[in-house]
């Protein structure tokens, strides 16, 4: 198991990630923005705020990708990225906000790519977002 990372390290990783993602979004590149946003998920990080901000970042990207572009965006992701995305989707659905419409569309698309195994791994993960 990897050594415990400090909250500061997670926070730093998140700020860098946020910059990269906003860059890609500004250029209109949703697929790349998504891939960047899924890097280095703060699973099990002790700081609640860092995890919440990470989730918010991913949801921002999910909301900005048009429905028709969803399959293309998923096509560039690896199995491990799909697993991470599924975890973010479930975390986003937990709060029951108005973005659940987009999240459910993404959930259906990710299940098509990653299968039930992807969902099982999202549920079995002990280190939560």
């Amino acid at each position, binding site marked *: 198991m990897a050594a415990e990372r400090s909250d500061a390290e997670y926070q730093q990783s998140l700020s860098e990630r946020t910059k990269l993602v906003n860059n890609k979004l500004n250029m209109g590149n949703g697929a790349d923005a998504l891939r960047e946003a899924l890097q280095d998920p703060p699973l099990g990080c002790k700081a609640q705020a860092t995890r919440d901000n990470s989730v918010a970042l991913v949801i921002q990207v999910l909301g900005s990708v048009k429905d028709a572009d969803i399959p293309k965006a998923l096509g560039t992701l690896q*199995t491990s990225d799909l*697993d991470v995305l599924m975890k973010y989707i479930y975390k986003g659905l937990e709060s029951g906000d108005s973005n659940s419409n987009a999240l459910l569309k993404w959930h259906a698309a990710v299940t098509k790519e990653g*299968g039930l*195994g*992807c969902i*099982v*791994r999202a549920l*079995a993960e*002990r280190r939560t977002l």
Partner: protein
Amino acid sequence: MTELQQLNYGGAVTCHAWSKDRNYLAFCPDNHEVHIYKKSGNSYEPDTVLVDHDQVVTGIDWAPNSNRIVTCSQDRNAYVWNFQAGKWEPTLVILRINRAATSVKWSPNETKFAVSSGSKTVSVCYFEDEHNWWVSKHLKKHKSTVLSIDWHPNSIFLGTGSSDFKARIFSAFVKGVDKRPDDSQNPWGAKTQTFGNLLQEWSASGWVHQVSWSPSGQTLAWVSHDSAISFGNTDGSVQSIPMTTLPFRTVLFLNENSVVAAGHDCNPMVFSNNGGTWQFTKNLDDANEGAKGPQGSATGNTRQMWANKVDKGTTSNETTLNTKHQNAISCLSIFQGAPGKVTQFTSSGVDGKLVAWKA
């Protein structure tokens, strides 16, 4: 595949084991009994029932050469059964566990057997001639229930899978019963000569349901509840394959380069080793769309269709799966071929069926 028969109507089969000549089958129909069926023509007919356990029998293993059966149960006991004068005579084994036993396996040389249990230990039992009874020694270091065990071909190393998310390899070397392991098969050297030494530990992201050694003893395969199948080599390297299917419950090596895994998808899947990398090869159950269960009458079907439309919002009338097994597969057993050259194997599961498959 050949569906052999329905062993339990309306219930699961917890585990099953074959006698050496495959004329006898022992299984537990999800209760405290062990049923032994005898081959009669193309099917198996009830022969005897062994009724010494008090709770569900969770593991059965039939030693091919010494013809002894060992059973373990949630009643925290294990029995070794010897066939004498036409009857199976039980010998109670004091495992010294305070939780249910989960599985049992004879060592390949049949001088020992190991029982995994919910008390976070594995009881390795060997026969002591002086006192004429089976003695148990405990392998500890597990943080939760040990779900399964498998013996290395040298009868000394033991692989374990636990619900603490880890697969481990221990030394189960018993002085006086075992000889020193052959150095060519032993990357851990002298560490292996002390009973209970932990030789290797791998992490998974879910409960490790089942472990299985390759015929050469170089690779340990395990399946875990995060829908993954993993292969760990004794040199420490490991490869994990995350699947898009539901989790596997059981895994079995067919030969050095081929493994079959089955579980909640009710379909045995074969994985092959191509030049050092394992990958999914095929499903053994073709899940034919046309092979459905018996169709009811026309009016009955129409009524069901409208009832479904009202109750469930769907017009389909499907109550059966397309696979041979109608529920999760929980036990795989070699049927034809020596271990390491398996040509056929059998599966049993929660639907109470026994199915034979060509490897």
